[in-house]
């Protein structure tokens, strides 16, 4: 799920950036530092949408670096148990398949794949129904439901299922080619 929230961060800026563009430099650095990172608490920071407040800088002894407390608005992405996501399959093996929804990695184990889909090994390993009408392979887009998340300080990993109504393949690149 996406959230638009306000976060705070202490930014250290090298004295060479001090000047008329100090603020721009600060924001640019903030984006570079923060976007794409993950915190267990808030999820993935997708994008910074604005800077609310830059506090008074504090010169650090000995280095000359200045620390600014910065309040910024950003969009974060945090997966939840029970949430339905659309994801791209990245790897298929006998144990199930892996998929990505943006920065989130999801594993769907084979017992959470419908029983009528069987693993086919080969150049392009895949899960296929007996009549061949549905095929899940690398690059397939699937809709899945998250049944568990493991949230570490810097990483979120999810377990998903496609064994439910309206879950499974959305579009099948193999079928088109």
């Amino acid at each position, binding site marked *: 799920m996406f959230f638009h929230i306000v976060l705070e961060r202490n930014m250290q800026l090298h004295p060479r950036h001090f000047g008329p563009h100090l603020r721009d430099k600060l924001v640019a650095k903030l984006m570079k530092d923060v976007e794409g990172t993950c915190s267990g608490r808030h999820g993935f920071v997708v994008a910074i949408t604005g800077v609310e407040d830059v506090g008074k800088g504090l010169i650090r002894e000995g280095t000359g670096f200045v620390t600014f407390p910065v309040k910024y608005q950003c969009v974060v992405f945090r997966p939840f148990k029970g949430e339905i996501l659309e994801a791209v399959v990245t*790897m298929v*093996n*006998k*144990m*199930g398949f*892996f998929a990505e929804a943006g920065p989130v*990695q999801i*594993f769907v*184990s*084979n*017992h*959470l794949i419908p029983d009528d889909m069987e*693993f086919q*090994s080969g150049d392009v*390993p895949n899960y296929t129904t007996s009549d061949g009408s549905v095929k899940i392979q690398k690059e397939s887009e699937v809709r899945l439901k998250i*049944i*568990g998340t*493991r949230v570490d300080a810097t990483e979120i*990993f999810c*377990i998903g*299922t496609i*064994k*439910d109504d309206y879950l499974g393949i959305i579009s099948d690149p193999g079928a088109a080619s």
Partner: protein
Amino acid sequence: MGSLEPFNRLVKLTARAFYDDISMKGENQPKTSRGDNRGMAVVVLDALTRRQWVREEDLAKSLKLHSKQLRRILRFFEEEKLVTRDHRKESAKGAKIYSAAAAAAGDGQAGTKEGEEKVKLHTHSYCCLDYAQICDVVRYRIHRMKKTLKDELDSRNTVQHYVCPNCKKRYSAFDALQLISYTDEYFHCENCNGELIAESDKLASEEMGDGDDNARKRRREKLNDMQQRIDEQLKPLQAQLKRVKDLPAPEFGSLQSWERLNLGAFTHGDSCAADASRNAQGQYNGTPMPYLGDTKVDVELAGSGAKEEGAESGRNGAELKVLPPWMVKEGMNLTKEQRGETSNTSSNGDEKSEGKDAKKQDPKEDEKSIQDEYIKAYYEALKKRQEQEDAKMMQQEGHAFSSTHSERQLGTKTKREDGDVEDEGVEWEEQEPLGNTSEPYKFVDLNAEAPESGDEEDGIDWEEG
């Protein structure tokens, strides 16, 4: 507009299926305290099936519940999405409007007494059943129950575990990323690089027979059993849901629109019209006065009355309103409920059987028998009355005729005597006595009449000539 009966049945079944053992206790009351109010939820829901919008105080009063207790129950049902509530600050006038609307809607029991009309600006709460939503909620609830069980049985939402056959190290699907091997299609142990086995497979292949396994088996059995019991016990409820599925749900609208509708300020085409019986009264353009609906009641003699009842689908099944005594006229095709013979306010009343027999009769037969009964009763009453009068005349001779009222021709009344229809007041048009009435009967003194009217004071309807 939908018939209420199947929906009310649904509500009752729902109440008994899901809210039977709900205890509505305040947080600070110990569970063991006296006066366990389990079952109260069912009583309240049942009571609501017999009402439309009702002021919560009135409901509490008629259920003999403390209003706080009732409010707690209603709040619970509001959260359960079965009941719609409305709160508003209102003056005496506002309360009156509601009362009038309630009276027009034929609820009868909501009427404000004279003394209560001087309400200051108080917040009043009203509630009514939200039938359309109830159907959805109940259907969804059953669906969720079944799905949860089924998922549990299929172990759908469980995180797969893996075990290394060599070093017995256990992993879960969350470790999948670290376990991938790029040489084959299996997961490999981090310690010994052994090929991991999914745990359910392991249980299937090897017969470990350890405690864990047994526990799982028992759990499965329990789930299976539960699933069966759900199917069995919810069968009537599901049947009712199916029956109701394609029927339009009764819709009372918001409190305001309901009031306006029942007061007839709305045009008839209003989409949130109520059930047929209320429509009939709703079209009556009236000032907000209770009981103005009186003249509207179709007093059709015999046959047409019966037909009318059949045609009005709205009041066909469930709630036949208790007609106030002054509404009861001869020739009306009444059921027991309408006469109020069964107590409508009783809280646990399940009126499934009430008055069914009366309704089921073939209308024509019904009409004929009523006519017959009427004639029989008439003659009997006449005879009895004559005897009484004769006796009285003997006693009071002279005295009666000297009274100031003696000149008046008064309507008098008598009583139907035959068996089961006893309490009904019947009026006579005094000027047209049938046949062989003797003269003294015609001039009855008010004073003389009073003592014998006895128990049915409210049935008297004097017509002064």
